[in-house]
């Protein structure tokens, strides 16, 4: 995935300011940033959910905005803060996504069954997704993104509100996916997960990328958290102000 000069303004605030990002194929790329840094906006523009004011987004060589059909076929997306068609049951939702992608019904059935089984969502479970817990919603969302075996997975906050057991399961699935030749881009502000999973990281703040590279080159000898706080420029210690605490 390569992003060139992406710009997005909302009214007067600039959410993303001329952002360039290259994600090498086969990498496990972590996009870090504090809340409001523009992570979700960037990823939304990269997958065709939000039209950029300027710039270009290419996925495996296809321009997302000029040739959306080709690009979208290779993409799997798990958006954050976006509802799913949650009045369907988990199985129905998977079947919907599969058929929407033009997959053969037999394959859809087989893969959905496996995904529901592996993610422990219950193959015969008729509970509507609207009644799922937050962690289950993330898992079914991930299953929907994986179903058509995309070459690039774009995940927005995949570990938010997920319990440790499910998080471990999701980590395992993603690692297998990358080992099989897939590329993953995900946003997060959980340093521990990023440190454990990623081959590459980029740190974003106020709509621009402040630091990028392989995990080793970004981190150096320090912990990722220290680097992150320093790059973003937040204060990490209090002075005399909160003496009344």
């Amino acid at each position, binding site marked *: 995935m390569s992003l060139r000069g992406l710009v997005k303004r909302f*009214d007067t605030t600039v959410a993303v300011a001329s952002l360039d990002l290259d994600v090498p194929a086969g990498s496990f790329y972590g996009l870090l940033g504090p809340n409001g840094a523009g992570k979700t906006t960037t990823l939304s523009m990269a*997958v*065709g*959910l*939000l*039209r950029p004011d300027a710039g270009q987004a290419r996925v495996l060589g296809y321009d997302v905005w000029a040739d*959306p*059909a080709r690009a*979208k*076929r290779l*993409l799997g*997306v798990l*958006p954050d*803060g*976006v*509802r*799913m*068609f*949650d*009045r*369907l*049951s988990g*199985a*129905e939702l*998977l*079947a*919907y*996504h*599969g*058929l*929407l*992608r*033009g997959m053969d*019904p037999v394959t*859809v*059935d087989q893969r*959905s*069954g496996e995904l*529901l089984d592996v993610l422990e969502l*219950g193959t*015969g*479970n*008729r*509970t*509507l997704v*609207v*009644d799922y817990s937050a962690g289950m919603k993330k898992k079914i969302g991930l299953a*929907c993104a994986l179903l058509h075996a995309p070459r690039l997975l774009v995940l927005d906050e995949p570990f938010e509100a997920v319990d440790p057991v499910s998080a471990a399961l999701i980590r395992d699935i993603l690692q297998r996916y990358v080992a099989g030749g897939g590329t993953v881009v995900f946003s997060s502000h959980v340093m521990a997960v990023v440190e454990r999973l990623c081959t590459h990281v980029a740190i974003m703040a106020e709509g621009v990328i402040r630091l990028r590279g392989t995990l080793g080159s970004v981190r150096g000898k320090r912990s990722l958290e220290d680097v992150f706080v320093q790059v973003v420029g937040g204060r990490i210690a209090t002075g005399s102000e909160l003496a009344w605490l």
Partner: protein
Amino acid sequence: MTFVRLKLRLIANGLRGQAWRVVLFVIGLLFGVGFAVAGYAVFAVPGLLGDVRVAGALIPLGGAAIVLGWLFLPLVFFGVDESLDPARFALLPLRRGTLILGMLAASLAGVPAIATLIATLGTVDATARLGGPLAAAAQLLGVVLGLLVCAAVSRAVTSAFATALRSRRARDLATILLAVVAALLGPIQLLALAGAQRADWDRVADVAAVVSWTPLGAPYAMGLDVIAGRAWAVPIKLATVMATLAALLWWWSATLERAMLGAATAARPSAIRRGTPVAQLVLPFLPRNRFGALVSREARYWWRETRRRASLITFSVVGIFLPVMMAVTGGGAGPLLLFVGALAAVGLSNQFGYEGSAYAANVVAGVPGRSELHARVAGYALYVTPLLIAIAVVVGAVTGRPGVIPSLLGVLVAAFGTGLAAVLPISVRGAYALPDTTNPFALSSGGGLAKGLMSFGALLAAVVGTIPIQVAGHLLGPAWLWAGFPIGVAYGAAAFVLGSRLAANWLDRRMPELLAAVTPR
């Protein structure tokens, strides 16, 4: 006061930057002004005529109608203004009394409240002309209290409902029940009107006299009592109104506490169903491909999503009762059927808003605009087609002329198709977000009146667009009986093809913009 400022600030922020919202708000404002002026005029007429009897009937009944309107309209059509949702104040250290008074004050600072106040001030005008300053003063007091009752009743009832319905299942069920009741209101009103036309003045006056003693009419009858020399009745009515107000506020505050606690999600036992995922999703008679999946999802949503199901129920009641009423009272059902057919199409006017940001799934998958729209219409038609047939059959049977059924159906289909032609482009360009809330009655977050106008515009366009069919019906005379069905269907289909082609082109170019429009903020 802070609450009022908050509300005004919310309205102002909602308008900032978006021209179409300003336009809609202004149109809503104009409707409010229209209601205020018309109401004032109607209520003031008895004063100008100098007719105490007319005043005695009109003012309490009209006032009661306004209170009932405040009770039902927010529930049914526009949704209560969510901009001051009590749950948002749950964590602030506010006493409940402060909260109640503040929210009451805030709900008075809106177009509907001000329009109501101006309209009912017409009664003060009338009583001043009929009974002098003393009567006017009593009436003025009544009008102000009446407005408070209106605001309190609408807030209390919605709050109570919202709390009782925190569990999703109970909520879904209640929305449906309410939709049935609300949809039946219209027919009941028509019956009452038909009855009123036959009844003589004395009967109406009797009804008005009774109503003026109920909390509904009491606030608006005080001035009349002064005129009639029953000044002793004023304190009693005052007490009635104050007691009502106190009871409403108490009830509201009792339910508010639970409303502030927010939704408690209860897990429900899940049934085991056999069948593969695809078999579970796709309806048996549909192809197992993208189109089949889209249509099946739409069909399930019309049933499972309460706002959609409620609108289906409202339509089916209105669609059957209106023409039957007209047929029974001797009027021609033909023009009304055009309206009903178009009304069916209006159900889709904010079709993308119903699912909100879930539409992202279709954007990511890159569903072409044509498949998207055709599938949505097909899913809706699964429910509407049987209804249209039922309407044609019922109307034909009631009028005792079964021979006209095919041509009636032709008219309905033509109106439905034309309606779709008008509604589909609107559903793409004029989509707006419905709030993502646990309140089943919430349809809008402020400025709801204005949004409803868009559907109204579509309805108007559809009715105008079907005029040729009406003309053809008149010109062909008896031949219309057999030609009506094929002509109507062909006309409707042609209109649908044109409209959906335009809408599909727009949709293909505007998918991300549409997604942004329907995503609640």
